[in-house]
Structures are given as C-alpha cells and as structure tokens.
C-alpha cells in the first residue's frame, strides 16, 4: 500500500515534455513515409536553398526550407529520425548487453577476472573514442551496420562500470550468501539474485545513453564517416549545411535542433527514471559518455 502510493507519487512527477518528445520522435521515425510532405531525396534545383516559411521568400510548401539541392529539410529531418532511432536502439542494446555481463562477472567474481576487465575498461576510457570509432569505420567501411557495431563495442564500458558497482553492493547482501547456502548454482545466483538488482540502473543508463549515441552517430556523420548520402541523417545534414552557414543558416540549424530536442527528451526521461527506479545512482554516469 505504502509502496504503490509512493510509485504513484513518482509517476505524477513524470516529465511530460520529455515523454512527449520521445513519443513524437518514435512515431515520426516509424511513420516517416506517411508524415513527410516530400520525398527526402528528390531534388528540385529550382527551389534550392529556399528559406523556411517565416522568412521572406519562404513558402508553406517547404516549411523549414530546402537545401542546396532543393530537397525539403523537414522531410529529410523526418526521415533522418529513422537512422537516429535505429542506431540508438540497436547500439544501446549491443553495448548494454555486452557491458552488463562484463560488469556482472567482474563484480561478482572479483580478483583476477575483475582486474583484467577493469584494465580493459581503463584502456577503453583512455583512448579518444571518437578517433578509434573513426579509424574503425574507416577500415570497415561506412555502412549503417558498421556504425552500429562500432558504437556498440566502443560504449560498453559505462554499462560495465555501473553494473559492476551495483554488483559489489548487491553482493554484500546476505541473500546472496543464503542462496549459496541453499545450494544455488553460480549461474542461478547471477541470473536470479544479482541480475534483477542491476536491471533498473541499466534501464536508466540505457535511456541516457540513447541520447549520447544519437549525438555520437551524428558526430560520425558530421565528420563524414557516418551514414552515406543520399540517405538523410541529421549529422550529414549538419555537415552539409555547414558550408552554407553564412547565407542559408537553416540548413544546419534545424537538424541540430532536432538532435538537441531528442537528447533533451532522453535526458529528462532518464533523470526521472533514475529518481524513480534507482535513487542511489547519481549523475555519476552522465559524464562518462
């Protein structure tokens, strides 16, 4: 009774803005075909660099204007959401499932296993990850699949560190000893007793990392080694728009704004989830990429 009313009190504090942003983002990405007013790749040179509707020369046909090839920016942003959603979702799933296991094993067994995994984490944290990612993508070729894989394997450390910290705490609990005394196998202890205790913080982390990954993917595209044209991606749009910054500012501004909104949404929702599911975990994880 006390717990349910507490839960309700926390649900009432839900960040409506953040949830709305994320909801819209997912809907837009899933139904881009039906929502977008234009094709994202059809070029119309006659309307190239047309400004957004509220500026002089803008038309309602191209709400947010067009780019240098006359493609509708709004439609490109709508289709770009797909890339962000797919990359964010899969990369988080990959890195989360790698990281959580490393963290579980490292924390539970301790000793030499722990030292080895923690050194791996240190190594990963010490390297400028963006260069590693760039070099890897350069080597493997810039396909969507490779981008997801590279982001996935370069961001497992955060999950591992958080999971390890959780496990170290959970391990101190006497129910773990009681499980051993009852004759539970190590696998059962890990899966039934330890894992449920790390799930909440991993969900929180995954939400926050979702935003980070979107930024990361766009950064790769921005540097030219992300999703290749003509597929619309927010990072590529930013990079392309950069050249026209002085006289067609809308090219770079709107896709960046979209990234910021989505990331803001994940941050808001992530913070709320953390307060609700995992009050112990502080902003600690935020800084660690």
């Amino acid at each position, binding site marked *: 009774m006390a717990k349910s009313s507490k839960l309700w009190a926390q649900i009432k504090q839900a960040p409506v803005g953040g949830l709305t942003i994320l909801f819209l983002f997912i809907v837009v990405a899933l139904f881009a075909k039906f929502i977008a007013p234009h094709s994202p790749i059809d070029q119309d040179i006659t309307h190239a660099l047309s400004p957004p509707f509220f500026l002089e020369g803008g038309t309602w046909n191209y709400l947010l204007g067009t780019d240098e090839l006359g493609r509708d920016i709004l439609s490109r942003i709508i289709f770009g959401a797909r890339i962000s959603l797919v990359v964010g979702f899969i990369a988080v799933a990959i890195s989360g499932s790698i990281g959580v296991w490393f963290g579980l094993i490292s924390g539970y067994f301790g000793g030499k296993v722990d030292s080895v995994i923690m050194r791996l984490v240190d190594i990963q944290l010490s390297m400028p990850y963006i260069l590693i990612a760039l070099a890897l993508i350069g080597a493997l070729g810039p396909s969507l699949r490779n981008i997801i894989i590279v982001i996935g394997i370069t961001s497992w450390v955060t999950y591992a560190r958080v999971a390890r910290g959780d496990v170290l705490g959970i391990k101190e609990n*006497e*129910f773990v*000893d*009681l499980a*051993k005394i*009852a*004759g*539970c196998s190590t696998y059962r202890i890990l899966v*039934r007793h330890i894992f*449920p205790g790390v799930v909440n913080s991993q969900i929180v982390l995954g939400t926050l990392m979702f935003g980070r990954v979107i930024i990361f993917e766009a950064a790769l595209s921005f540097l030219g080694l992300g999703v290749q044209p003509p597929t619309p991606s927010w990072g590529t749009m930013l990079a392309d728009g950069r050249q026209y910054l002085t006289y067609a500012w809308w090219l770079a501004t709107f896709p960046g704004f979209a990234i910021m909104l989505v990331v803001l949404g994940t941050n808001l929702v992530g913070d709320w989830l953390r307060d609700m599911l995992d009050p112990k975990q502080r902003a600690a994880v935020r800084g660690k990429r």
Partner: protein
Amino acid sequence: MKGESILKVNNLKKYFSMGKEGIFSGKARMVKAVDGVDFSLYKGQTFGLVGESGCGKSTTGRCILKLYGITNGEILFQGKNIHSFEGKERMQYRREVQAVFQDPYGSLNPRMRIGEFIEEPMLVHGTFNSRDRKKRVAKLLGVVGLSSDHASRYPHEFSGGQRQRICIARALSLNPKLVILDEPVSALDVSIRAQILNLLMDLQEEFGLTYLFISHDLSVVEHISDFVAVMYLAKIVEMAPCDMIFKNPLHPYTNALLSAILVPDPELAQDAIILEGDAADPRGLEKGCRFRDRCFNATDECMEKEPELIEVEPNHKVACLRVAQKK
C-alpha cells in the same frame, strides 16, 4: 547431557590475505580471523558462540557454511570432512545445514516474492513437484506465524521481525539438521526480539534442530544456549555448559564481559570491571596470551606463554595460565 555429535570443528584456522606487503615481495599480509578453534555441536542442542565484533565468531559460522574455504584444520559433519564433499554429497550438506543471518533487510532479495524465496531451496534441490512445494510454502509460513497469503507479496511490505520469520521459514524448508543462527535477533527491536527467540526455541523442540547461535549479546545467549563458548581475538578462551559459565565464569575476559552487561534493573548496583583499551590488533600477537594487554590479572608469564584451552573442571575449559595454576 551430550548425546550424539552432529558437527565437529577441529583446530579450525581461517586467515584472510590483506594484499601483498609489496608489489615485488610475495609475502602476503595475513589477518588471522580464526586461529585454532575446536568445538562440537550435539544433536538437538544449542551451542552459543559469543564474543565482541571481530573476534572471529561469524567467520567460524561462515566456514561451517562453506562460504569460506579454510586455512587449516577440519570441519566434520556427521564424521565426514565437509570440504571434501563433491557433487551429491555437497548438495546433501547444503540440504542439511541452513542459516539465518543478522540483517533482516539484506537477507531477503527485494525482487523476489516471499513464496519464491521460501520455495527456492526446494526448487534447487528438486524436492517435491511444483504443487507440493507451494503447499509446503504455505505450511511453513504458518509454522513461523505468518499467513499463507503472504507468499505472493514482496519483502518491502514486511517489518524486520516478519522478515526474520520469513528467513526462518526458508531455512526450515529442506528439513535441515543444523541451523547456523548468526546474530538473528540483534537488528530487531526489543519488543520483537522476544517473539523471534521464542519462535526459535519452539521450532527447535518441534523439529529437533541443532543450533549454532552466534551473538555478541550475553543475555540472549544465556537464554537460548545449552553450551557456550566465549571467543576473544580468533580463539576460544572459555567453553562450558551454559549454567556453569554464567554462574562460575573463570576467564578474566568472561568475567569482564559478564560484568559489563547492563541489567535492566536500577536497584542492582553493579560494579563493572572496566577493561582498558580496545581489542588488540590480531596482527601484533606473536606470543603470549592474546588478552594480556587488557587483563587485570596478567603476569609476566602471560606475556611469554600462550595458554592452552584446558579442562579445569568437568566440561569446563579455560585458556588462562592463572586459572590453570589455581586449579
């Protein structure tokens, strides 16, 4: 009085390594948590193991529970060395020895329903089918004074005393022979403590359980135990049947402990023996009696010679040179 021995601890030693002394020297720093302890548990009886924090009483319990490997000595369960158990025998041991710990909050997995929690040992050991297990959970809940519809609830809905009852129910689920009770009432409020102690004693009678009762609280130990051992810095300093040790304590440490108990009665004027200083660092003790620095009776000999635990009167063992000389 004694009856059948169920578990025997012979010269048990447990040292913990505290890291290496230097990166390049192989010598490890050792903390001797338990340093040569002998005792036996007899069927249907309660053996009280009492001492202050860090004396090694809990470590002893954990060695018996096979949560730690041991450094030296042996633990015999019904005549067999428990550290030689493999496979089937190991599971058999896990079935027959259970435990209840101090912290009622840490003992329950917050994400497991009470029913699952009590059922888990039976599930792991493959006893009964699913339906019978559920029935048994309901029955066990009744035995410890809870209602069977508590099974579907989560731990956060229960108070400390109720949680401890749940732990007891789980411990009983496999019909164990021996239950290690490690400070089972220390974290509970005074008014709840008595409930749990009564429950433990009732269950012992009903199921013929053997208890190893580990506690720092002498009045609780006196209440529940048949036989008591007092530990100080990794060793037993005095061991005797309960009445004997409380009526006629021989070791100066036992005396000091007893006099430090605050009797809830303002009219009983007490003159506590105030011991100087803190418990010594076990690392500094190479020779001599481990209690010598705090002892009000220590002589030069105590600095040099380590006393053995010897029987000074029938069933009453003490590790003190001065007491041994007097007798």
